[in-house]
């Protein structure tokens, strides 16, 4: 291939080059570790929700699948990691994590096969329904899930047999950051692959993708399953950090909040999934201290402004400002 033809593919082939500003979220995360040692539990929560939002971005931002039931996979991951830690002799965190990823991916595949046969509002209703079914299952099966009391007694051994989860959450924070780094690399590769481009094509115009020979349904099922698996990883991290699983991981709140976080940060741009949860959770933390009863009002007003003035999210706003300054 000539250089000419190569540059012609500047779309996804060219975009796979790493740019310096893509390291910013990770530099900030490492800086946070040293600068704010007292806030590492908040930090871990942010990293987990970034991972969760990243999984949502894959289906919502790139596949165009609107879901309000993504907590089904967060919850599946959380409970499966919890079951392994509580009921089996396996206490290795990496194995628990992989088990959660596999289980959530499988649930994503099975429900995706049903949900993705439909379109529009029906998709949203079905995602809500599946999350509600799982929540009720977990509630009724209190003998193994602990029901409303939560699942406790989860054994989590030191990572690689060396790094123990400490009281200050230092190990947990770095562990979450490591998992996020791996997931970010995978999602980024996927998005810039022909598969990712075909997802964008499906979002733009699904029937056109059919007509150029793409099995749209199976592409969407694949994206949905991968997204579910990543959400499952986020759930496993929640379990391992807290060593407790509550029913709320399967509730509507995480599903709704992660959508709000992603829209706040910017949909379909990968880094929106980093910025959104960080801003949301820091705001939530700060506002909840100042106005314990009205903190959601602040989030709501913030979201209104973003939707109104920055329809591509905060990350879109930043790149617009950066362009005006004549930088990338």
């Amino acid at each position, binding site marked *: 291939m000539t250089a000419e033809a190569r540059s*012609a593919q*500047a*779309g996804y082939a060219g975009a796979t080059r790493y740019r310096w500003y893509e390291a910013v979220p990770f530099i900030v995360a490492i800086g946070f570790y040293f600068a704010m040692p007292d806030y590492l539990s908040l930090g871990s929560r942010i990293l987990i929700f970034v991972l969760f939002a990243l999984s949502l971005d894959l289906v919502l931002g790139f596949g165009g699948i609107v879901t309000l039931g993504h907590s089904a996979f967060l919850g599946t991951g959380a409970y499966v990691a919890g079951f392994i830690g509580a009921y089996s002799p396996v206490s290795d965190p990496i194995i628990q994590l992989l088990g959660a990823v596999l289980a959530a991916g499988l649930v994503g595949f099975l429900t995706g096969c049903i949900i993705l046969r439909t379109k529009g509002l029906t998709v949203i209703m079905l995602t809500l329904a599946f999350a509600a079914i799982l929540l009720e299952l977990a509630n009724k099966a209190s003998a193994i899930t602990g029901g409303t009391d939560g699942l406790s007694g989860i054994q989590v051994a030191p990572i690689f047999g060396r790094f123990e989860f400490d009281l200050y959450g230092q190990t947990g924070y770095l562990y979450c950051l490591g998992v996020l780094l791996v997931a970010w690399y995978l999602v980024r590769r996927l998005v810039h692959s022909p598969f990712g481009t*075909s997802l964008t094509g499906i979002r*733009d115009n699904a029937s056109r993708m059919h*007509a*150029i*020979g793409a099995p749209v349904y199976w592409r969407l099922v694949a994206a949905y399953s991968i997204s579910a698996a990543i959400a499952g990883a986020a759930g496993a991290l929640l379990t391992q950090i807290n060593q407790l699983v509550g029913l709320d991981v399967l509730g509507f709140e995480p599903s709704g909040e992660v959508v709000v976080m992603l829209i706040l940060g910017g949909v379909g741009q990968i880094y929106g999934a980093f910025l959104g949860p960080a801003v949301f959770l820091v705001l939530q933390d700060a506002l909840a201290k100042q106005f314990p009863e009205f903190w959601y009002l602040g989030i709501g007003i913030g979201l209104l402004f973003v939707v109104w003035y920055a329809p591509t999210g905060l990350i879109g706003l930043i790149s617009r400002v950066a362009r005006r300054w004549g930088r990338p």
Partner: protein
Amino acid sequence: MADLLQISALSAGYADTTVLEDVSITVSDGRSLAVLGRNGVGKTTLLASIMGRTTFRSGQIQFSQTRIEGLPTYQRNRLGIGYVPQTREVFPSLTVAENLIIAERRSRSGSSNRWSIDRVYDLFPRLAERRTNGGNQLSGGEQQMLSIGRALMGNPRLLLLDEPMEGLAPIIVDMLVKAIERLKTEDTLSIILVEQHAKLALSVTDDAIIMRRGRIVHSGGSQMLLNAPDELANLIVAH
């Protein structure tokens, strides 16, 4: 010469409405067919039915010796049918180059891999200049070129063109006509061209059918109709 596409007694429509009734056409390898008729006689529906985008009722569609009326759209494309819809439908979020690459489909045998992004750029140099532009930053003519180029990237044996000249400036129409003629001579591509502008369509095709109310009312050589404008007008305008 082998029959590439053979439609016999096809009835099809949308949901409960039947649009096409008892339609039979044959397109041989390397031949081109103009589909003429007024608005709403089922020309677009005919192309959409070949692609599997309508509700099939009865009849048979055979493409290179394979029955395809029951296949999903993407498999029909993979068998070698390229489709350029009237609405062009370029992907707005993708660049020109991405719009093309996304449709690239290489056959395993390698024998029919005639198309590459460079060859599309050679056919439409305008696209090469706009390669990094987004799909939403193109003029109507450029979108049409991109839509045709994208269909070619799948190495089709049959290309369905739905009113490609509609609403375009005369100079762009000239360009497209030249491109279609090049496709016919340089490639063994078969083409079905739906067009409002009858003379234009007849001048670039071998055969023609005229449709009225979902049925074929005339079928014959393009040149013959071109030489008999009065008869052509009579056939198209229903009484």
